[in-house]
């Protein structure tokens, strides 16, 4: 039985669905990485994703225009990110809790709007797999890597970009400083608030896109609590990645592929209780972290509001 796991079709399936599944995690986790690197813990990701997912879906449902949908998802994400920034930076509210509040709001609001504006579960025609002339036709490789939709590629593109911004730009430097020792940054004339507003808003935008990637690219449908806690997993993956985009990517892929593996395990009829199989990705994420025994310290100012002691 287990041997059946190592057939070509399974491995291809694993890789391609792993790559696909990782998309929303990547967007959300990369965005959250920025916020956390600058010292803001935003637990509201899942709520923002839901709002992004619905608004994107709704526009496409009405107009059929995918890019317009993506745009609205981005705007809604930005607004909610701004709100989170205002709460945690300007009002210095406790971050973990404000995040839970934002989550609950997004969870309820997206469902409310859905019931009032759409009411029935409907499907839309989302972003279609790109057909990249030659590449897509390469037998195995093509199927795995080159038959995904544009938002999938976008997610992977974000990884090097994020790495570059964090490590190579002056903004990245400010961001790292603000997340580690805001007072020091402040004394050098760096505006802690400005940096955090930018990162948290960016995080919101990314969460919005993450939501849209579900509702108008991968699933092409909206439903109450469409994300089903995916945003929280994304946050966990930020910790898994130790606030480094590259490792966040690895974490997202690992989690998604193991998730798709457990689906395969059931599908090819290996005798193991379904619930136990479903545990696998969660268990493995922890186990891997234990084995790899990373010693990354979290940003010292993470989840701590900064105000001058004036």
């Amino acid at each position, binding site marked *: 039985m287990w041997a059946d796991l190592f057939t070509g079709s399974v491995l291809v399936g694993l890789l391609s669905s792993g790559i696909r599944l990782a998309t929303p995690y990547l967007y959300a986790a990369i965005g959250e990485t920025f916020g956390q690197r600058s010292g803001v813990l935003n637990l509201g990701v899942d709520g923002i994703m839901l709002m992004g997912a619905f608004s994107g879906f709704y526009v496409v449902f009405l107009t059929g225009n995918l890019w317009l949908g993506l745009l609205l998802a981005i705007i809604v994400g930005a607004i909610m990110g701004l709100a989170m920034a205002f709460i945690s930076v300007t009002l210095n509210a406790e971050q973990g809790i404000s995040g839970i509040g934002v989550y609950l709001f997004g969870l309820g609001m997206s469902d409310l709007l859905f019931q009032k504006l759409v009411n029935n579960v409907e499907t839309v025609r989302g972003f279609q797999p790109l057909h990249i002339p030659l590449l897509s036709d390469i037998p195995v490789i093509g199927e795995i890597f080159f038959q995904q939709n544009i938002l999938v590629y976008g997610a992977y593109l974000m990884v090097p970009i994020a790495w570059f911004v964090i490590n190579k730009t*002056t903004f990245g430097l*400010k961001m790292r400083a603000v997340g*580690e*020792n805001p007072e*020091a940054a402040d004394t050098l*004339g760096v505006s802690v608030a400005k940096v955090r507003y930018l990162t948290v808003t960016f995080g919101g935008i990314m969460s919005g896109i993450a939501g849209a990637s579900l509702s108008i690219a991968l699933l092409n449908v909206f439903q109450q609590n469409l994300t089903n806690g995916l945003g929280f997993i994304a946050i966990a993956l930020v910790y898994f990645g130790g606030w480094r985009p590259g490792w966040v990517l690895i974490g997202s892929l690992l989690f998604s592929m193991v998730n798709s593996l457990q689906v395969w395990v059931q599908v090819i009829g290996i005798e193991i209780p379904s619930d136990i199989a479903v545990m696998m990705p969660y268990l493995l994420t922890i186990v891997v972290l234990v084995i790899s025994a990373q010693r990354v310290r979290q940003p010292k100012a993470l989840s701590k509001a900064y105000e001058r002691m*004036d």
Partner: protein
Amino acid sequence: MTEQELLPSGHPKIHHLEMKNIVKRFPGVLANDHVHFDIKAGEVHALLGENGAGKSTLMKQLYGLYHPDEGEILFDGKSLRISSPADAIRLGIGMIHQHFMLVDTLTVAENVALGLPSSRGMLTDLDKVTERINELAKLYGLDVRTDALIWQLSVGQQQKVEIIKALYRGAALLILDEPTAVLTPQEVDDFFVILKQMAAEGHSLIFISHKLHEVMAFTDRVTVLRDGKNVGSVQTKDTDKRQLAEMMVGRQLKPAKLLDQSQIGQPRLEIKGISALNDFDSPALNCIDLEIRAGEILGLAGVSGNGQPELAQVIAGLRNETGGTILLDGKDITKATPEELIQIGVAFIPEERNRDGLIREFTVSENIILRDLNSGFYSKKGFLDMPSIAERSKSLVAGYKVKTPSIDTPMKSLSGGNAQKVILARELSRNPKVLIAAQPTRGVDIGATEYIHDMIIQQRSAGTATMLISEDLDEILALSDRIAVIFHGEIMGIVDRADATPEKLGLMMAGERIGEEPEC
């Protein structure tokens, strides 16, 4: 400010800066009470005062970190509001902060570059910054590895980074809040050369220090604060240490007493061939041999970053040795846990007071019991014994002259001197067999310093074997019976105070060995 008078740093001169009637209130504290302060271009102006006198507060208002509740700040006669450090920087004000404003996880170069425009626009230009830093370093003899992460550096080196930050940015007016607290005599001298040169160029310098000889050495004018009020302002040439000291504390100071060595007894602490690694696993101590007798103070001199904290931590059980043994009254305590060592009677005043020595958010009394929960004094069967805690805290606060509103005041509202007294009270009240005192008076004002020295001497008379770790040679020479010098984690030699001179010690601190090589 008129255009034609640009300083080499490119900032326009500030001919006359004036702080008038500055009032700053904090919860429970009137930190500045109608304070006047002024400084002219090219002047070096010292700001003196005991811990909590209001020096840093006053300067933080000049730098835009705090905002005056009353009063105004005049630049060449016109009143300006400085709402943030960004404003201050724009006005050509720079500040070296009392507590390092460095980002531990960034490199030296990154810390310097932070907040500055980059020659590559959006992208960092660390290579250029590094070049420039190295120029400055060469010019002023400040050696630091630009690619080192801050947390890897010793306090002394971190202080140098702070200085480089300031020099790199340049400023028409530079505020120096206790910049010399952690520098060695040599480094201080080099540093003063830089400052004198800057002053000569027309920069204005405000210098805060608890070390009066430094103030005498190179300032033009001195303003003294006490309890947030002006005490007075004098030309340096017209005054002397004693007068300044008395202006600060507001009373006569008694002359330091000489020590008789009659009561020195049996070897108490024996350190035999101790070696250890530092936080990032490179060798910090190599085969240290030291012996301290009952009733003796052994001074451990040395430039910061030569293994002093590591040695103290090994003795206190906070760091594992890689070789060697430690005996107390002949018993092997090498493997003892901190808990056990406290019980056995090893007292420890750590170098980094605010990080290791106390919990700033805890109250005074909570900090007094910090290391004695198992002593039975403060708890019955796992329950805190509040009455006796209160009682004992009160008596210790009184006994050690800690200036605090109450024993329930959060530690963080106490000034350094008083914070240090609390630690002292906790450690000495145990009347320990051994006392490890690391930089016990760093950043602490004269009054408190005097008091802390008295306490250490009293303990000596009580038969405690004391290791006094200090980078302040005056302090070492004033208190020690014998002086050991540590360099690159090795003991360069041990001399009696009688035949110890600053020069001799200076050489040893620079790596000259007088004793024989360690045999392990």
